[in-house]
């Protein structure tokens, strides 16, 4: 863990990630955070780069109204905590996901409502059975979606966060580990437990659990 305070010498050397247009000089997020200790307004660059992604994530989880509030909170908290940012990490997006995820912990009820609403919509949309493989017998497809929504809601916060960051946001295990401040092994074991719980609550063959 290297803090960005006074770390300009380190962060100045970061190259744009491989595969991106290398003819364009891109300042890394770490360099931006380091620079924000000299000139705090530089932090606004981080908002320009990541606000859209973080906002979409928040909307998916709790809906537009609460996402609006949480977007502002996420970046305000990020600014306050920038002294604790690990400056060896060039990309700040996982860190921002982590801050947003922590803030979401106080919004479980809205999340449950939103999942249930999505499940109802999903049950009546084309291809509703795809995710479940064999045709569901004892339960209707609509039931299965509702059960899945409830099952996600009933997971522990730790398991749910890992599962959503993986399935919806498509973060890598390493990125999830960074976001949540836990080892990669913990991400794997939480995801595995979450999957097991989900299977217990919603059996893939549609039998009554």
């Amino acid at each position, binding site marked *: 863990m290297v803090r960005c305070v006074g770390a300009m010498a380190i962060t100045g050397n970061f190259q744009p990630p491989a595969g991106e247009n290398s003819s364009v000089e891109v300042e890394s997020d770490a360099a931006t955070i380091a620079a924000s200790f000299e000139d*705090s307004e530089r*932090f606004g660059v981080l908002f*320009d780069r990541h606000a859209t992604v973080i906002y*979409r994530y928040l909307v998916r989880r709790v809906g537009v109204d609460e996402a609006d509030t949480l977007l502002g909170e996420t970046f305000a908290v990020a600014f306050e905590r920038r002294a604790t940012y690990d400056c060896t990490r060039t990309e700040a997006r996982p860190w921002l996901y982590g801050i947003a995820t922590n803030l979401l912990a106080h919004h479980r009820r809205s999340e449950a409502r939103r999942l249930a609403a*999505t499940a109802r919509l999903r049950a009546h949309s084309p291809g509703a059975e795809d995710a*479940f493989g064999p045709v569901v017998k004892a339960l209707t497809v609509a039931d299965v979606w509702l059960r899945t929504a409830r099952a*996600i809601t009933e997971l522990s916060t730790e398991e749910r966060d890992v599962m959503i960051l993986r399935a919806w946001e498509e973060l890598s295990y390493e990125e999830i580990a960074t976001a949540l401040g836990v080892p990669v092994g913990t991400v794997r074991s939480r995801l595995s437990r979450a999957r097991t719980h989900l299977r217990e609550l919603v059996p893939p063959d549609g039998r009554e659990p």
Partner: protein
Amino acid sequence: MSNNIEGLDPVRGLRPDQLRPNEPAEPIVFSRHKEQLMTAISGTESYDDVIRMMPDIYPRLAYDDERAAVEYLGRVFAIEEIREARMEHGDTMLAWLRVGNGVVMVGHADEEVHRISSPRSLGRTTVQMMVYVHNVDEHFAHAFAQGADISMALQDAFYGERRYEATDLEGHRWHFAERFADIKARGGHVPDEATGGLPPEDRSSAM
């Protein structure tokens, strides 16, 4: 999707924008939050900013009740705390107060480690804070109205400054002054010959 990688397809299926196009994200949402963030950022100093701006030398003043001291110095002498810098240690704390381009640190009397005492427990002080203020007439009037213990009345000193002195709640001495040139610049009146601070026998010769 149907191969259900990692067994997460049911979860993926509940990702809201699987059903509808991405929620329209109004550009105004972003511009509003960006503006709020920038306002908050430009109005704050982090602890690190504060540490960075410290002068290379500044005094640490010892008080038996440092919280009361910070309140008093702010209310009576208009010396404001740099709130972002405060460090709490259980019952005691350290505070940094901004005085123009200078800083004073206010902490608990510490007889063991730093061997600094409040003037109240010593019965005397050995140092005086020398402070330039923007308008010493107003500063004096404000301090007086707030019940300051004025230990030297406002006077025009022979070396070209208007000044007064006050003793704070635990006995630290504060000297507040404004240069004649600055008084004139704000349209104030200064005497041609000032004698404040001269010994009585020298006053007539200076006149």
